[in-house]
């Protein structure tokens, strides 16, 4: 397939409720399921659609993200012919310096340059906080079959699957069969129990339509995002359709939804839905040794990455790379990120340890499923209960 898409990843995402996990990283680089980061999911969708390049818009410095993406070679984005990961960081900072207007002119120019130079027929917009595994080829086929100009991916969910004050929106469809989009609506205003079409903030757009919108967004000083785009398309009365996604989905908006998404992976159906489908999820794999499980290890329904040494009990938990779990350590319903050390005679339940946390001998931490305890990066947990922040 010839390169036909110019992907734009809007990674300026809502991250306040994910603190302290997002203190020093964007939502897109949140670690997930032992060896992934959230960006791997949209990137793998792009890989499987044979995208050659991608443009990223990031609110902060993006350090952790760049460290993960590097040249983009894992996702086939590093070709010398037409390839490249075009990064645009500090979007918020630049905007704040632009005086009277919301955005500085480069914000629009960057989008314009990327799309016009990429020789693509379509623009694909995506984010990373709605965890899913979307097949862009099927989306494109639907888009063409419908003679659509803009096609938005949605999933039928219950209102209760999203947090109370969610930032996400729902599509209002003309009727489910035609899939024509009539409006967007904030989900936060909707009643519990209602079923809705969650706008997955992933869309495919004809290049010309995108450039027309860009002109308008610049004139009106608007954010370039999926909701504004839908609004614009409806106002212009251009054809816009919804494409139904039926796979695994989780809106990661706060600590609990992040925790739940990870725990979901311990259910084989969810795990298979996300990872064992036709298109694999790709991540930057690091050099590693296999994980060693000692004679005293007791494992029950848990997942691990390579390079760990496990001597204790691990139940219903996810353990990232290079983690050591000592004898008589008990870890249950927890997420342990890479480089953490859990000494012997410890107890952790409903806990999220960020990277490189040290849990000293005799320490106990117990959260609840609704309110897991989070220990931020480089923290130390002592036996008497005091916690040294990293």
């Amino acid at each position, binding site marked *: 397939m010839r390169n036909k898409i110019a992907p734009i990843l809007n990674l300026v995402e809502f991250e306040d409720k994910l603190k302290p996990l997002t203190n020093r990283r964007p939502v897109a680089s949140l670690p997930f*399921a032992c060896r992934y980061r959230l960006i791997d999911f949209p990137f793998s969708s792009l890989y499987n659609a044979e995208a050659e390049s991608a443009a990223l818009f990031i609110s902060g410095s993006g350090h952790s993200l760049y460290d993960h993406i590097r040249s983009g070679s894992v996702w086939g984005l590093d070709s010398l012919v037409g390839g490249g990961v075009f990064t645009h960081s500090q979007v918020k900072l630049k905007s704040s310096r632009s005086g009277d207007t919301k955005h500085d002119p480069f914000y629009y120019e960057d989008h314009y340059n990327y799309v016009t130079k990429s020789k693509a027929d379509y623009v694909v917009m995506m984010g990373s906080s709605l965890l899913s595994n979307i097949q862009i080829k099927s989306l494109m086929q639907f888009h063409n079959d419908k003679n659509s100009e803009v096609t938005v991916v949605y999933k039928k969910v219950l209102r209760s699957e999203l947090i109370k004050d969610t930032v996400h929106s729902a599509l209002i469809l003309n009727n489910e069969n035609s899939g024509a989009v009539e409006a967007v609506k904030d989900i936060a205003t909707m009643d519990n129990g209602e079923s809705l079409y969650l706008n997955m903030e992933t869309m495919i757009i004809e290049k010309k339509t995108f450039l027309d919108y860009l002109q308008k967004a610049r004139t009106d000083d608007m954010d370039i995002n999926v909701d504004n785009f839908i609004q614009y398309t409806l106002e212009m009365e251009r054809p816009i359709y919804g494409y139904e996604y039926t796979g695994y989905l989780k809106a990661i908006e706060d600590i609990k939804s992040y925790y739940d998404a990870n725990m979901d992976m311990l259910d084989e159906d969810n795990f298979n839905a996300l990872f064992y489908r036709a298109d694999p999820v790709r991540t930057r794999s690091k050099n590693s040794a296999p994980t060693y499980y000692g*004679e005293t290890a007791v494992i029950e*329904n848990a997942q691990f990455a390579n390079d760990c040494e496990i001597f204790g009990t691990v139940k219903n938990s996810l353990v990232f790379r290079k983690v050591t779990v000592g004898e008589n350590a008990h870890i249950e319903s927890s997420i342990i990120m890479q480089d953490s050390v859990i000494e012997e005679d410890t107890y952790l339940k409903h806990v999220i340890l960020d990277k490189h946390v040290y849990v000293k001998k005799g320490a106990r931490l117990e959260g609840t499923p609704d309110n897991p305890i989070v220990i931020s990066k480089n923290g130390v947990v002592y036996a008497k209960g005091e916690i040294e922040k990293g």
Partner: protein
Amino acid sequence: MKTETVAMILAGGQGSRLGKLTKQIAKPAVPFGGNYRIIDFALSNCANSGFNDVAVVTQYQPLVLNRHVGNGSSWGLNRHNGGATILQPYSSVDGEKFFKGTAHAVYQNIDYINQKNPEYVVILSGDHIYKMDYEKMLDYHKKQGASLTVGVIPVPWEEASRFGVMNTDKTDRIIEFQEKPENPKSNLASMGIYIFTWARLKQYLSDSQSKSRHMDDFGHDVLPAYLRNSESIFAYSFEGYWKDVGTIESLWSANMEFIDPNHELNIRDRDWRVYSKNPNTTPQFLTETARVENSMITDGCYIAGEVNHSILSHNVKVGKNSVVKDSFIMPNAVIGENVTIEKAIVGEGARIYDDTELIGTEKEIAVVGYGEEVGGYSDEK
């Protein structure tokens, strides 16, 4: 910058004593230790020793090996001018260039070495498990002003007759070479590691062609010629773990030793890492029914049965009520339910169907070949 050293890893051997494990792939490409292939140890040693120009010379069944080595990026060897290069036999106006032996393989690729024009050429074999700093050996070679330095390792006297042994004088100069001698005069076994001063070796290899004196093999031809001509040859003694995994039993026992978290190789040492090409795969999933003890398990595995003192390479599946004990399972093997595997090596992509027993002994390890299917419906049953 001038190239000082070129490393040539000779990876063309078949390794016929590994039986069906080397039927489709060359010995250096045989999986080891869950996450590696045998050649990773030599390649990682090169990378850790600061060698940038590394050629992997392949011949026998090279497909898997070539894919594995690629451009050497997994070992950080894809830098600037150097990098990993795969050299294969080719045909030219001089006829076909299939390799008749180790030295012949180097001669046939003389164009590659000439292009680099190095001071020294390091000859390595791609089929041993060890960690070694070749730079120290190179320093020794320079200090001695040697034209050849041979890496040797002391072996128990009773085993010396299985190796090529080097008889040295008090200054570690090699004065005699015995190939698999009945009565060894020394217990210093050749590791198949040679550092040559290139200008000298080049002369020997080139002259042999015009004078039709055969210089096909380093041990058999080149070393004796060097000795005869009183070249300065020194032995460099290596101490540490070094294992030839040339037979089924030695491959199995090297893997079993490797499980030990206190193994001398110290695989988790961050300062001397063993690199490999890491596949893109999922986390390890151990279900509620899994029992795992004293074992090494790799990403992509799915385990619902019992694993005891074994190594499972990536993407291995073990079904419910199955037991894997004292065994080495290669990548992508699928083990069904109610299967018992003991003292076995299971090849890449093999399938062991439900209710199968596969039990070997220390003297005769059970082996399942690549992609082989065992059990299930068959006429033989």
